[in-house]
């Protein structure tokens, strides 16, 4: 049966994750105000990706889920990433 008690995440973990998320938010606001040219978008997106990883892992409990659920989520995000890459391979190399 799958109704057994699952892992109770202590408040401390959630508070630490929130602090990390807030720090990354302000870091991304800070980094885009520096002139990085075309790397600005990349920097902002890298910060957003780290933040989404934290939300998925701790807030959405993937860390405590069974491996097949992690694999499912990872697979879907990987496919989305591949679609973006293919779209830009098209746009970047159009004559």
């Amino acid at each position, binding site marked *: 049966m799958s109704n057994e008690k*699952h892992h109770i995440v202590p408040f401390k973990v959630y508070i630490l994750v929130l602090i990390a998320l807030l720090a990354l938010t302000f870091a991304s606001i800070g980094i885009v105000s520096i002139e990085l040219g075309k790397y600005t978008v990349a920097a902002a997106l890298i910060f*957003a990706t780290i933040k989404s990883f934290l939300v998925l892992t701790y807030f959405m409990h993937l860390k405590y889920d069974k491996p097949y659920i992690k694999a499912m989520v990872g697979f879907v995000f990987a496919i989305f990433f591949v679609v973006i890459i293919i779209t830009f391979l098209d746009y970047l190399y159009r004559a």
Partner: protein
Amino acid sequence: MENTLHQEHEHYDAEASKIGMWLFIFTELLLFGGLFIVYSVYRFLNPEAFHLAAEELNTTIGAINTVILLVSSMTIAMSTSTLQMRKKGATLFLLGVTVVLGLVFLVNKYFEWGAKFEHGIWPGSEHLKTAFSQGEILFFGLYYVMTGLHALHIIIGLIIIFFAIHRVNRGTVNENRAALLENAGLYWHLVDLIWIFLFPLFYLIH
């Protein structure tokens, strides 16, 4: 013989509920993912116009809303822990805080959109069509569609949390039957996840 003696058991399977919720989240990713691809292609084709149009957006109000959503994500995550610890009062309190934060987010959004409307910027407005370039019109179109769709998700999330509050209060959602609250949490985190990408893409173009 034995079967007739058995009482009707309501079917409950927490793991199946969770998989169902994740499958639903994948369809949401398809919806927003498509919009993010449209955004990235148009931005690639109109870099200057997106840059210019984004100046109209208020980074401060965007940052405040980011903080609000992150904190509300934490409070709903905490409420799933308190439910497991059988602290009903704390669970209801944390869910209440989540609802209030969600409402504050919507109020901020109302003022933010209101300011744009005052400047004559809304989809199809005369000012937008005459004073802005094609790329800027695309930016504002995407801005209204994506943040609007996101706000709609906030409203739906709040309705789901209201149901969770009601059921936790009645005791039909408890430490042994937590799926509704867990799934409400997953949905709310998804809304947070989408905002994590909307914020830098619309408000942080400098």
